[in-house]
């Protein structure tokens, strides 16, 4: 039997590259487009599945599709989503940040201490701003430390951030004397903070704004391109004279900063500064990044993928809970999803 082939994509005249973005007739372009949309297809699949599996309300309407439920999902994924967005950059440089959960705990602790123990004559807005800025600064400082050690001492990121994961957890516990700091139960400034920050629009808005900003930074800025370049091949980056150390310090600093932000939101939602918060959040964030198609080897990945990965995990949790599935079973299902997602990605790569 004879197989017929379509011709290879037409080669243009030397030196004259078509400047158009991938068009429908361009086979390679079509494949790339499909690849880009792959995560989106998976998201649509899981939404359809969720609609089918969702229990019905008394009036026959689909509980999953209720506006309240959908925004709940977004709110629930916001904290890990914000962490995952920054984690994407770290992983794109072929690094990893295990310290994000501890940094989140530090963030909750610092913002709670700032609100309850610092008496500065600034008024509510000033005091809240100060507490938030302190938490963000603490997170960024942890990240900058990670980045400086990774870039300067050439110790593997896994080891560096494993160390800070332990150390920063200790710092958070030491600052709070290993006790939760309740906030927002009275009529004080902390209550104003908790009420404002924990509003759905603020929480979801934070995730969306961060995702949009990081997406743009990755796609259109020099820094974003350097991030991918360093992860694609650090040796080539060095031979090209790229500022590798600066890029690394920045990605870890951003990871710390967003972990601090996640901590602020966590504190507001849970009404406490909790030095034990965020345990294993690094793994949730990494899972979201990986499901979104970003390679742990660096160089390849996207913020949009991470957002999709975060949503897939969130929707999955939601629909399982709507059906009263045991939370232990939920973890097992998640495990399968992570493996499936990565298996699909890597199969595509080897083809």
């Amino acid at each position, binding site marked *: 039997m004879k*197989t017929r*082939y*379509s011709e*290879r*994509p*037409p*080669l*243009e005249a*030397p*030196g*004259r*590259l*078509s*400047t*158009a*973005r*991938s068009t429908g007739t*361009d*086979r*390679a*372009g079509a*494949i*790339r487009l499909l690849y880009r949309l792959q995560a989106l297809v998976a998201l649509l699949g899981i939404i359809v599945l969720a609609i089918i599996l969702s229990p019905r309300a008394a009036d026959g309407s689909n509980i999953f599709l209720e506006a309240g439920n959908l925004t709940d999902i977004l709110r629930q994924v916001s904290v890990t989503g914000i962490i995952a967005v920054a984690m994407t950059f770290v992983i794109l440089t072929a690094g990893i940040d295990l310290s994000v959960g501890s940094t989140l705990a530090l963030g909750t602790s610092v913002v709670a201490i700032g609100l309850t123990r610092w008496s500065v004559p600034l008024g509510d807005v000033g005091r809240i701003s100060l507490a938030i800025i302190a938490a963000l600064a603490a997170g960024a400082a942890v990240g900058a430390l990670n980045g400086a050690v990774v870039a300067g001492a050439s110790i593997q990121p896994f080891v560096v951030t494993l160390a800070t994961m332990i150390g920063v957890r200790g710092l958070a516990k030491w600052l709070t004397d290993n006790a939760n700091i309740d906030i927002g139960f009275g009529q004080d400034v902390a209550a104003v903070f908790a009420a404002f920050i924990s509003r759905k629009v603020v929480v979801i808005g934070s995730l969306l704004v961060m995702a949009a900003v990081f997406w743009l930074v990755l796609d*259109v*800025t*020099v*820094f974003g*391109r*350097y991030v*991918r*370049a360093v992860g*694609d*091949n650090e*040796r*080539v*980056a*060095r*031979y*090209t*004279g*790229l*500022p590798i150390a600066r890029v690394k310090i920045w990605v870890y600093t951003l990871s710390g900063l967003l972990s601090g932000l996640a901590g602020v939101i966590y504190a507001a939602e849970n009404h406490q500064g909790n030095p034990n918060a965020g345990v294993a959040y690094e793994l949730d964030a990494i899972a979201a990044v990986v499901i979104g198609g970003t390679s742990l080897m660096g*160089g*390849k990945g996207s913020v949009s993928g991470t957002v999709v990965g975060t949503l897939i995990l969130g929707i999955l949790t939601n629909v399982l809970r709507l059906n009263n599935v045991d939370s232990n079973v939920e973890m097992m299902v998640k495990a399968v999803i992570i493996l499936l997602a990565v298996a699909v990605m890597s199969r595509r790569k080897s*083809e």
Partner: protein
Amino acid sequence: MTTTELLRAESVIKRYDGVAALRGANFSVANGEVHALVGENGAGKSTLARIIAGATRADSGRIFFEGNEVSISSPLDAQRLGIAIIFQELDLFPHLTIAENIAIGNLKLERQAFVRRRELDLWCQPFLDQVGALDSPRTVLANLPIAHMQLVAIARALSLDARLILMDEPTSSLSDDAVERLFATVNRLKQGGVSVVFVSHRLKEIFRICDTITVLRDGSTIGTKTTQSTDANEIVTMMAGRPLKDRPIAKRGVSSDVLLSVSQLTTGRIQNISFDLRRGEVLGVAGLVGAGRSELGAALFGLRRLVRGRVQINGQPVEISSPRAAIEAGVGMLPEDRKLQGLMMQMTVLENSSMAVLPRYQSWGIIRRKKELVAMEAVHQRTALKAASPDVPVSTLSGGNQQKVLLAKWLLMEPAVLFLDDPTRGIDVAAKADIYETIHAAASRGMGIIFVSSELPELLQCCHRIMVLHEGRNAGILEGAQATQESIMALATATAPALSGQSGLPA
């Protein structure tokens, strides 16, 4: 020929991402012959070799081994049949010893739970002898030069009782003397009844050691010839589908002002190298592998600590302590290994081309794609790059086009001095000619170019002068009629007083 057939592949078809790499290729190897598989880049020769060795699975096609149809779906299947492949980028374990590398994956040995080193040494020694490898079996592989590693890879194939050994571009990273040693080994294998398939570009070598030549073009078999019944011109025509003529290269004049002045440059591996490079000059660097050619580049590009030496650019002394410092001083380097050192393989043509000068095309940190594209297209007018779009990953391009992207990256930067480390390694004839022209166009605009190559004809064709290195030292700089293959080899091997007027030896 009257010899019996060992392997036959029929109508092999393989597609990658919808692009056909092989469109029904046929290939047959006789017992005890050395068979060349040739073709331009992208012709499918490596793919065919990989399929026969079980490293890649064909979409369809039949393979017969000793007359029986076989299914080779993994390297293990191939090993059981006695088929071994030696990849261009040798698939050895750098941190294991020679003996461990030879033994690993050997089914006969894997049955044992424990390994006795002495036994292992004794067991692998005959194979090392057979290929003429002199290193101790206990040597860790990473400490060996690449030519020795290749011998280890062949020894491993022998240890697996290989009857057919496929070698993918085995000479592309070897110096001339190592090539000689490899050929001696290949001849010994042939005498022992082993068939060798030699995938290569280098027709000269093929005509020296191969009995038969099969030409592939665009994934199809064009024909098979015995070496006696054909010549290089016919093979080139079969490869290209048209007769190819040598394009003459117009060497432009060189200005008299010195652009780069290097004196007493010394690192761990080179000693007291001094030379001047003038504006607009293409200075060739010849020498055997290990003579310090790449090391010279590493030293000039800030990858090595200098023990001693001064570098001046435009008369100003410069301190080059890192690639960044080198780039700032006006030195660019196109490294030897484009995949590991030169290009970001997952990134696009555009991204790679502009990588070194990206800040030029930004405002407020945001990349101006239009500006970037205009600059890139201008430079690729000169390199004659062929790519479907600026947004395809460079990994999808052929070797020659990848090399053009790498060259473009440095041309965009316009460094004062550009060090090219074997820029035409493993690429086809047409792309080579494009690259020579691009180099000369850059030189004519005033860039100083240092051109390292293992291929002497290329250096003789392209360079104004040729510096020959021998054991880390500058053995002499040849100019004009002085520069011939013979005079270069004489200096490179330190075998003869090559330069007239420099022969200080007593008669």
